[in-house]
Every structure is written in C-alpha cells, then in structure tokens.
C-alpha cells in the first residue's frame, strides 16, 4: 500500500534517484527508520533525583500559592462587596456621592474617587518619569563611577523614607511653599480647567497638585532603580558598534541605550504608577476632603480610593458600610490589574532586542 507513495517522493524533491523510479525508494532520504530491535519491553520511569523533585515541588508550590492568594483576595473583595452594592441607592460607577454613615440608606459612587486617584497618579507619573529617566541616564552613562554609586544609594534611600514622613512634609512644607506657584497658575492659566480655581483653600495647599508632586517623589526611586538596571544591561557590542561609527555620548544613548531600555523604562513607570494608585497615608494627610465634587482642577481637594478607605476606619464596625469601602477597594484592585496588563502589552510590543 505504502510503496508507490515512497517511490514517488524522490521524484518530487528532484533528487538524482528520481529517474530510477521504484528502485530509488531504498535510497530516499525519507526511508523509514526500522524500529530499534533492542527496545525495552517495559518502559522504565525516568530516574528523578530527589533534589530535582524537592525543588520542583517548591517552585510549583510557590507559583500555585501566589496565584491562589491573589484569587482569594479578589474573591474576598467580591464576596464582601456584593451585599452592600445591592443596598446602594445611587449608581456605584457613575455617582459622585459618598455617604455611608447611615447603613440604612447607603449612597456611594466611585466616580469622584476614580477621578482624583487617576489625576493624582498621572500627575505624579508625568513629573516622575522624565526626572527618573534623566537620573538613570546620568547614573549609567555620564556620572563618573565614583559618583554614580553613592548617588544611586541616595536615590534608593528615598524609597526607605516612611510614607507618613512624606505626607507630613507635603502638608506642612511643600503645600504652603507651592502657594505662589499655584496662585500664579490659577491667575494666568485659570481658563484651562486643570488650572482653574479649585474647591479648597489654595494657601494651605491641600490639593491634588501637592499630592501629585509628593507621590512623584515617592515613586521616583523605583522608576529610577529599575530603569538604571535596564540601561546598564545595554549590550556592550551595540554600544561599541555605535561608538565605532563615530557616535557622541548622546548619540550612543539615542541609538542603543534608549531603544534597548525603552520597554524596561515603560514597565518601571508602570510599576511606579501601580504604587501611585495605591499610595495611602501620604495622600490621606495631604488631601483635604472638599465639600464639593472634584472639578478637574489640580487645585481641588478630594480623596483617592486608598485615602478614602483609610479615613473611614470608624465606619467599619457596620458590615454594610464596610462593604461599600471594600467595593471601592475592589475597583482599585481591578485598576491596578489593568495598568499592569497595559504595561505588559507595551513591553511585549518591543521584542527586537530579544
């Protein structure tokens, strides 16, 4: 049955044996390999060393554990939030109202929290990203070795400063110091919604503007540290290739370091954004909760998801009120996931260097 097929193969692939027709079959490169005569009758299980087994168990266990943990947190949030969401008398996603002091009449919507959270985080990111890029490039490309080390330590130290210290600094030092700047912005660019006169006292500086700057300082170390590590790994052969072509320092950075480090820099920034979204204590201390809704101005007060939840501890004794905050936490959880997913897709889009 099979013979004619085998015989025709060489003809198709144009091998010299083609003209010889059937006779070519035994010489054809595709000739079937005869089964090995000494094949063992009962296949033995491959020997696994105990070290391998233990390590595989540990590694798999850790992987399963972390996934299960995240799943459990999500599940917890959903289970706790659902009853309160059912009792909500306004639309949870589109309402700007937040009143959970009376568990019999829950009125809570996240729109304001979402806007303030996003605006604070984006502002922080817009400030921190270019500065972190500059520092990382300076440390890896320009700074003399003797200076680069201690400088990097100082930046890393920023990450070790407790959140509450940043909060106090923002409230008592930075906020008031910013008054002339914010006043100038309101006076001259007030026609633009972002710089409009806000709903809190500008002189105290308890605004989204101050909070954004403080959070920028807080996420600066992580973005800098990760970008620095990525830039340092630029393959020497590409750097040398650029130098040999007569590239100046900046041209080397532009043609090799930046293209190579772009994906890492974006992920670093997204890590920073993740931290900014969840930053709690500092923002809570700085932002004063305004009486009117957030109006798209940097000089508004307000509350982010995290700061709102942190301020609400007294209400947690009633599960219905607590559920409202857990629902807000759930949205923050999802938001962070979305940010991470976006970061991953950006990174996946830049695979040239792999």
């Amino acid at each position, binding site marked *: 049955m099979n013979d004619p097929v085998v015989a025709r193969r060489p003809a198709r692939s144009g091998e010299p044996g083609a003209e010889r027709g059937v006779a070519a079959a035994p010489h054809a490169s595709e000739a079937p390999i005869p089964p090995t005569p000494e094949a063992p009758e009962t296949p033995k299980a491959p020997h696994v060393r105990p070290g391998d087994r233990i390590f595989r168990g540990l590694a798999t266990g850790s992987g399963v554990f972390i996934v299960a943990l995240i799943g459990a947190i999500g599940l917890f949030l959903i289970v706790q939030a659902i009853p309160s969401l059912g009792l909500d008398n306004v639309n949870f996603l589109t309402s700007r109202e937040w009143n959970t002091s009376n568990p019999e009449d829950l009125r809570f919507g996240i729109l304001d929290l979402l806007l303030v959270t996003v605006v604070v985080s984006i502002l922080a990111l817009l400030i921190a990203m270019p500065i972190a890029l500059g520092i990382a490039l300076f440390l890896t490309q320009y700074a003399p*070795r003797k200076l680069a080390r201690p400088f990097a330590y100082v930046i890393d130290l920023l990450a070790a400063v407790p959140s509450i210290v940043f909060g106090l600094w923002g409230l008592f030092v930075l906020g008031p110091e910013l008054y002339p700047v914010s006043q100038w912005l309101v006076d001259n660019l007030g026609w633009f919604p972002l710089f409009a006169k806000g709903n809190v006292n500008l002189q105290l500086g308890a605004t989204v503007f101050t909070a954004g700057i403080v959070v920028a300082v807080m996420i600066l170390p992580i973005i800098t540290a990760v970008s620095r590590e990525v830039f340092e790994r630029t*393959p020497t*052969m*590409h750097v*040398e*290739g*650029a*130098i*040999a*072509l*007569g*590239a*100046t320092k900046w*041209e080397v950075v532009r*043609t*090799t370091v930046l*293209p190579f480090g772009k994906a890492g820099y974006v992920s670093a920034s997204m890590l920073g954004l993740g931290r900014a979204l969840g930053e709690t204590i500092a923002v809570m201390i700085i932002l004063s909760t305004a009486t009117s809704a957030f109006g798209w101005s940097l000089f508004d007060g307000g509350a982010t998801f995290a700061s709102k939840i942190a301020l609400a501890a007294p209400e947690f004794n009633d599960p219905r009120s607590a559920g409202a905050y857990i629902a807000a936490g759930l949205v923050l959880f999802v938001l962070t996931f979305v940010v991470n997913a976006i970061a991953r897709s950006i990174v996946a889009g830049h695979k*040239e*260097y792999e």
Partner: protein
Amino acid sequence: MAKRLDIKDLNLFYGKFHAVENVSLAVPPKNVTAFIGPSGCGKSTVLRSLNRMHEVAPGARVEGKVLLDGEDIYASTVDPVEVRRTIGMVFQRPNPFPTMSIRDNVVAGLRLAGVKDKKKLDEVAERSLRGANLWNEVKDRLDKPGGGLSGGQQQRLCIARAIAVQPDLLLMDEPCSALDPISTLAIEDLITELKKEYTIVIVTHNMQQAARVSDQTAFFNLLGVGQPGQLIEVDDTEKIFSNPGQKATEDYISGRFG
C-alpha cells in the same frame, strides 16, 4: 579613501597593566594586513587603538603614534569622534542595531556625520550593500529590521555599514569567528574585493584565513602571563607562512605552540 597607516612605538595600557609593548608597523594603502597570535597577546587591543576605541575602556591609556597618511590620530587637536567617523570597524559578533531597518543600519554612520539628503542616503545604502555582496539578498526588505538576517548576512550588513562612509581604514576583529564556513567564505571573498578600494587590518585566529586573504601578516606573542604582548615580526604573508624570520613565529604557525 584608502590611506596609509603607520604605527610608531605604540604602548597600550589598561590602568596599570601594560597590555602591549612597542609596536611599530606600516600598512600601505589598499593592502590587507592580518594580525595573528595566541589569544590575550593584544591583537584586539592594538586594533582598537587604531580608531581610538581603546580609550573607551576605563583607565585605558595610549603612548606612541598612529599616523594616517602622516597625520597622527592621537594629536591633541584631534577629536576621537571625528577619527572614528572616517575609520570603519567590524566586530567579532555581528552587531547591527536591532531596532533599525537594514537601510538605516547601513547609513547610520552617515546620519551621525550629518548627511540628511534622502536621495544621497539611498544611493549610499545601495552602493554599500552591493559592495558588501548583500544587495541581492536584501533589496526587497530594506525596511525590515537588521536583526532578522542570518549571522553571515548580519556580518555583511555590518561591513556595509562600515564602508558606507568610504573609510580611510577598515578594521576587522575576527569577523568570521562567529560564522559558519559558508558565510566565512563569503566574507573572505568580500575582503579580497574590498582590498581594491580600502586599507584593511584584520585580526584572525584562523591561520588559513590569514594566508588566504592577507598581503602582510603581523605575528604577536606573549612572553608570559602578566607580561605585555609584543609584535614579534611582520612581513609578507607568503614569507611568514613559508619562511618566517623568528623561531616563535614558526612554532606558532606549525601549531607547536599556543
């Protein structure tokens, strides 16, 4: 365009380490000179001093003169970046810029030198790719990234990039050591052609290759660990391989050493 190279009393250091001692040699224009010798004897170090790449290493230092048509590239008024723009270099591992298209890779050096005219750049890209025997293989995908080519094609792309500026001198550091035999042959043929237009210095660990492509061969050696590498002798390739002047050269070539 092809210039004459004269190296005079060159001493090269990495910090306190004296890597290469007292090298003097001359390369006529449109000539291929091969550097051979055991690994660690300083062939790459000498080669990298010829386009001022040596000083990129931290603490690296140069003493002596490197003259291109009589002009010292180490003179105090000379800008190393300018030197590198007129000297081509090809590395051991092919290193096209992975994010750049094939065309952009070829003209990268010209762009750095400030050439913006699109028509000129396209012309140079075609001429250089033809010069590197790569044009027929890539002419339909000039806008695709250079990283997608095979190793041998990438190395020819790097050669195209190096000759795009019509360099005074073309330096190659073991350009075939990461390639398969067929690609190696393609590059050797290419070197033989490039010789008509360029002055070439090539480091190779492959003695047959030195014998096949070069007009002149320089043998470097290391007297001992921690000692500086030395130029033992330099002569016509034929003479070095048939009747070397030094015992050490003969030992190395006949494989009794290193």
